[in-house]
């Protein structure tokens, strides 16, 4: 064991505070230290993930106060799966953007890496924390680093996107506080496990209303249907790799929060059906909108939102198969959307407007990037033998096992649309003549490394899904075991 969960938060923060100092001495350290920290976090999380297969959930208390008095961090198979995935993607984003821009040595560019590192840290914090108010703090950390990253390019309409994000984000955080306070006023605790334990003591009315406020607050970050207007703008205007980070890290953390709140904290019976309805609405609206996009990144953004809707549906199914499917989808979405954003931003790198037609004929000029984009597109459509297929099969099987035939039909019909708009792009890459007077930007070595490793993962998991099904299975079982979670935390003797 290399460390305990608290280091996931503390080490990056320490680094973030030190970097401004080292940056004065050695400029490149601003770029390198986040990478080292993220690698350390990855090693830590993988070793912890192995460790917990033997010992069971690791629960760490802060300041020596046992839950529910102190804040505690929970590294369970479920949260550990999320954390590892997010850190891995964060590291890849770092690798990808190590030399993303030629003029990256200017000052704000250096802030990019710190913001990225803290974005990952905040997301990991959301996932690991066992305290609802602490979760709020981490959501805000993610939010502010998100605003900063979104408005990174001063030339674009990025401030507009960031402002929309901030607008929604602060409404969300207000309602989150409100919800937390309602719960606290009734139960006198902020610890998720104890809240879950005491939940029957709360009156039904307050339960429902606080849950609604929670849904509004977390739904904004989780890109739930009527609350996701900010998301496509942010994905589009942020630097390319940050789109991948939003899709793969922030949205995942928010989904985790949704599940923790709805599944673990509350015991309302209609909640899961509600999740299915919202998920399917999100899925349909986002995918149909994606079909009509003429900008590449915006299309990817809507597609990403749609996928998150599908994840919500899978969680809403609520059986162990459903949660397995949801986690598989999350894994797939993280790596595939990551690859699509990575390769997509190079395909339209030189273009200001980033139209889909700008990818015309890129297959010849950027062969590796194009192939990788194609692999990503095929994988996200759910074609075998890429990893996306297993996720799709899992959610459909889960839906079928719960006798939701209509749901299967909806998912599959919308998937046809998804196939259409991705293949449109692939067709353009390979079979359209290149536009006049267009220079291309060859991907840098580090970007290629990041993209190729994602592509390889997609293929390997596609051929042999068992590499991760074990982890996902344990994670799903862990989430299902609600009483175990409560007992583990409330009876810890550390």
């Amino acid at each position, binding site marked *: 064991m290399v460390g305990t969960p608290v280091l996931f938060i503390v080490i990056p923060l320490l680094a973030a505070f030190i970097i401004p100092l080292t940056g004065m001495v050695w400029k490149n350290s601003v770029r390198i230290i986040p990478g080292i920290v993220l690698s350390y976090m990855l090693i830590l999380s993988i070793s912890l993930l192995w460790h917990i297969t033997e010992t069971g959930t690791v629960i760490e208390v802060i300041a020596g106060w046992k839950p529910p008095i102190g804040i505690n961090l929970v590294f369970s198979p479920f949260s550990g799966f999320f954390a590892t995935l997010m850190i891995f993607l964060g590291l890849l984003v770092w690798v990808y953007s190590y030399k993303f821009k030629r003029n990256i040595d200017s000052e704000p560019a250096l802030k990019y890496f710190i913001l990225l590192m803290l974005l990952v840290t905040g997301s990991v914090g959301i996932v690991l924390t066992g305290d609802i108010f602490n979760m709020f703090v981490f959501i805000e950390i993610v939010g502010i680093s998100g605003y900063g990253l979104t408005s990174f390019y001063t030339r674009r309409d990025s401030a507009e996107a960031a402002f929309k994000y901030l607008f929604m984000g*602060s409404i969300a955080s207000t309602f989150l*506080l409100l919800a937390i*306070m309602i719960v*606290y006023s009734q139960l006198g605790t*902020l610890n998720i496990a104890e809240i879950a334990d005491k939940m029957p003591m709360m009156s039904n009315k307050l339960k429902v209303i606080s849950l609604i406020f929670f849904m509004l607050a977390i739904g904004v970050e989780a890109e739930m249907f009527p609350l996701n207007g900010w998301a496509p703008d942010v994905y589009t205007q942020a630097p390319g790799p940050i789109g991948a980070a939003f899709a793969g890290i922030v949205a995942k953390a928010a989904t985790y929060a949704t599940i923790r709140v709805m599944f673990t904290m509350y015991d309302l019976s209609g909640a899961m059906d509600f999740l299915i309805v919202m998920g399917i609405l999100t899925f349909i609206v986002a995918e149909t909108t994606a079909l009509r996009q003429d900008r590449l990144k915006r299309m990817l953004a809507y597609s990403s939102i749609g996928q998150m809707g599908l994840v919500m549906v899978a969680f809403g199914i609520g059986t162990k198969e459903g949660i397995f499917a949801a986690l598989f989808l999350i894994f797939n979405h993280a790596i595939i959307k990551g690859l699509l954003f990575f390769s997509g931003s190079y395909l339209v790198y030189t273009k200001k407007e980033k139209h889909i037609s700008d990818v015309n004929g890129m297959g010849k000029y950027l062969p590796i990037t194009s192939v990788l984009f194609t692999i990503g597109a095929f994988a996200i459509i759910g074609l075998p033998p890429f990893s996306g297929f297993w996720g799709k099969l899992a959610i459909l099987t889960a839906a079928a096992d719960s006798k939701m035939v209509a749901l299967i039909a909806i998912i599959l019909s919308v998937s046809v649309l998804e196939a259409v708009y991705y293949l449109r792009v692939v067709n353009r890459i390979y079979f359209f003549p290149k536009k006049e007077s267009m220079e291309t930007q060859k991907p840098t070595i580090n970007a290629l490394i990041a993209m190729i490793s994602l592509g390889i993962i997609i293929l390997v998991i596609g051929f042999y899904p068992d590499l991760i099904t074990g982890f996902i299975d344990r994670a799903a079982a862990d989430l299902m075991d609600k009483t175990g979670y409560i007992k583990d935390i409330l009876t810890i003797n550390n």
Partner: protein
Amino acid sequence: MEKYLEILNYAIYGAAILLLLIGLYGALTKKSLIKIVLGLSIMDSGVHLLMISIGYLKNGTAPIFSPGHENELAKMVDPVPQALVLTAIVIGFGVTAVALALVIRLYKHHNTLRIDEIKNLKW
């Protein structure tokens, strides 16, 4: 008379909720970005006030064991919401600062503060 006083007890809740609604109204209807940010701040304040008042105990004292008051444990108001509000205020400040910075940039970029004219990104 006591009944009215009972209602007056809830005045602070009412005020807080009113603040929340006023802030929300401002954020949702005003066109100026600055006013929207103000609205968001007011909304935040409303929630903070609400939080504080939830922790209040009638005739309670501050949760400080000042000399001579070491044993007034039962009378002390709930310190937790106060601690939370402290955190929430600081976070709200950070968000507001970022929001204002964004407003400055939006104004430079679009030369207007009207939110319905800043719609380059849509559909």
